[in-house]
């Protein structure tokens, strides 16, 4: 639909006034393939990490929600190992809450919020969820560990590090996900949070 013109506007907005802790840019010249990074919130297990996400904009956007996935491994009750996110704003009604008045920016912001406040009652990863609910310290510890392993730039300058690491991570995570995707492809619906 209005995808092209709308995305164009959205990208402008994202570049001019991005939400705090979030960056988003167009991949190549493809209008329907975006990349984003979310900075782990302070006082969360993800602090210090930089999480990359992949955004696929469907043809029918904005009448359909963008497809967003974590490229960076993250230990979270609502995000599975292939990076898929269980979030109602990413699904169409009646099950989801997507609506055309939302946009990439708001969705990324809500994902940022989800990272800070997992929703164990609508888990995608049952184990992590119960851990989050009943053994928070353990959860926090693991989440931090994952963050350190996968999302933190170990070297120097954040800026440079980002540039270099991001691609690498993506590459690796992509492979991983490729597998995951294949596996999940067969039972897509089921995987959603239950």
């Amino acid at each position, binding site marked *: 639909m*209005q995808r092209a013109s709308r995305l164009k506007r959205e990208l402008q907005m994202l570049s001019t006034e991005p939400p705090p802790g979030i960056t988003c*840019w167009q991949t*190549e*010249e493809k209008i329907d393939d975006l990349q984003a990074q979310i900075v782990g919130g302070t006082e969360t297990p993800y602090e210090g990490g930089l999480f990359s996400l992949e955004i696929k904009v469907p043809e029918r956007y904005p009448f359909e929600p963008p497809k967003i996935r974590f490229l960076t491994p993250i230990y979270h009750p609502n995000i599975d190992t292939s990076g898929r996110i269980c979030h109602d704003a990413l699904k169409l009604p009646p099950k989801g809450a997507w609506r055309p008045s939302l946009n990439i920016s708001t969705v990324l912001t809500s994902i940022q919020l989800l990272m800070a406040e997992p929703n164990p009652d609508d888990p995608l990863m049952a184990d992590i969820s119960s851990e989050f609910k009943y053994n928070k310290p353990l959860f926090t510890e693991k989440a931090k560990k994952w963050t350190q392993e996968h999302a933190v730039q170990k070297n120097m300058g954040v800026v440079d590090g980002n540039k270099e690491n991001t*691609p690498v991570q993506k590459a690796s995570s992509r492979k991983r996900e490729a597998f995951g995707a294949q596996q999940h492809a067969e039972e897509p619906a089921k995987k959603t949070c239950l």
Partner: protein
Amino acid sequence: MEGSDSLEQSGSDQPESQRRRQLDRLGREEAFYQFVNNLSDEDYRLMRDNNLLGTPGEVTEDELFSRLQQIKDGPEQQNNTPSAENAEDPVEPPENSEDPAGGDSLLDWLNTVRRTGNTTRTGHRGNQSWRAVSQTNPNSGDFRFSLEISVNRNLAEQQAAAEGEQEVPEEARGEASGEAGGEASQEAGGEASRGAGGEASREAGGEASREAGGEASREAGGEASREAGGEASREAGGEASGEAEGGASGEARVEASGEARVEASGEAPGEASEESPEVVPDVAPEMALEMASEVQEPVVNAEPPVPMETEVVEEPVVEELAVIVEPEPELEEVVSQEILGEPPSPLAAPLVQPPLSPSPRRGQRRARSRSPEPRRTRARTARSRSPLNLDQLDGLHNPHHVLSSQGPISANAPTVPQVEGSSRTRQHVLSRQSTSDSDVQPSRAGAEPVPDVQNVTSQEGEAASGEGGAAGRRPPTIMLDLQVRRVRPGEYRQRDSIASRTRSRSQNSNNTFLYESERGGFRRTFSRSERAGVRTYVSTIRIPIRRISDAGLGEATSMALQSMIRQIMTGFGELGYLMDSDSDSSDSNRGANTPADLAEALNNTDTTPAAAPAADVDVEPPMAAGVRARTAETDVDESLATAPPASGGRARSRPPISLEEPGSLPFLRLAHFFLLNDDDEDQPQGLTKEQIDNLSMRNFGESDALKTCSVCITEYAEGNKLRKLPCSHEYHVHCIDRWLSENSTCPICRRAVLVSANRESVV
């Protein structure tokens, strides 16, 4: 950013072209909005409803403009002919050209359908023959496809009896004279149905003539049969006549909906039948047919020109898919026989009795289809079939007829059925609305009055049985009618009404079972009733197709249609099972086969596509496709059993296409049947076009404060059309309409746009 760049190197070559493409697209989008904003409300609605707007940026303004012109041209024609149907008919004839591609797949066919037109195709395989007729109503864009498959069981017998019937039942028949008519009739019927009677007749005539012509239906028939003009109609109607070998029983059948078919199976002899036909025509052509049948002699086919059916298109059916299986098998039963029989009896006097009371009966039946008045009545009532009661009534009135008929019938019936064992599945479009049957004669009129819901069914059944009986020899025939209609505002209501109709119908019956399940917009109703030994199964599946439209043009739509058809077929299959299990009759095969056949038929046949507007399936997306299939089978369990020809019974089934062995088919229990429904997935519910149109709309004016449409994130410009939801949130009309077609809440506040419409979507 950088990251992206590095990743993209591989694609670095593309950027240029991609950028250019994007620019082009943006330009087109701008043009799109401009175009939309300049459209008048009507034009906008027209294009939207026909899904001609497409996606902004995908289509150039010129293309949009040409689409608008096209669609406008179409409608105008329609307008001219209030009775859209009529208009159609005329068109059809010319188009009738048959499409040769018998082998085309349904999908191909659907994809190629572009123009309005009616087409008829026939073919046969082994002992089965099929005829497919497609019709498109240019005005409404409704598309209708009917397929009839007949299997000759007792070929030998039949042949012997009537040469025409022989192998390819239908075709054969046609040849046989009467039959040709029969086929023709079917088609004609189908066509006729839509068209007003007159049209119907023409078409029928036309088709009949063609086909018949080819086949000599007339000749066969008679020769004399009919007078030409009239004949056509009759033939159409009467085509059936040919069939009857034996006797002729004419089958007069009116298909409920628009199609009224009268089949009179006359036997080949045909001799005189013609005369009767003529007479009949006037009065009650059908009756005549029947009579003829009784007489067995030749067929009279009087089938009146009436084009019975006509039902047509206009019906509300639209988005629903209704599969009605009315197997009414057992002709044996007296009642049914009577009905059927009656006519016959009169027939006995092969002559023209038709006109008289007998005719009425049939008339009633047929009348339903044909007689204009009746049609209307029926239409309202529901199917044309209602007549059963009427018939009975008539019978009363015309005792003698009845009696006679009964006598004969019963006698015949039993036998016949057996012999033939024909099972017919007819799917009619329920559209009862049959509009016109101007032809209808008085007799019919009388009949009409009575439309009982149940009756309807029964009638059909009866009719079927009648056919079976009368025609006795008639090869089993499976008829399938598919109707695809555009959804129009208010149609949903109709849908409801249909549902209720069905319900009431079943309730009335003495022995009725009604099952209904609904899920995510997909609704299935199954009912079974037993009356006078006639069992009727009605399965209605309603699928909102509206959504399909969104999916896109073309492929998506056709795919959707395909799946619908598949479902229908599946439904048949299921029904077949049900029937089998219920009856335990040897026919079980039959049931199974039938569905299979249908399926095959569909595949094979190509239907012709027709439809122009409709044809554009793609375009139509919005339209709802209503597919109604009605299957009426006449089984004569007993008869089968008795039957004659065992061969007949089984033969038929096998001959048809042995998709699967009956045995291999699992017996479906009702429970299973219904469980299947659960598989349907839930789909988001959107608003109907009507509901959307009821929302207020205004033009953005200068005075308004600057605002932005939150769907497209674009500021409103003067002249933009905005739609205001009950919650006061506004959007561009084209933006919000699309959203609301699939969802029912406000994009901003998520409040339900319609209080009653909100479902889970309201969070």
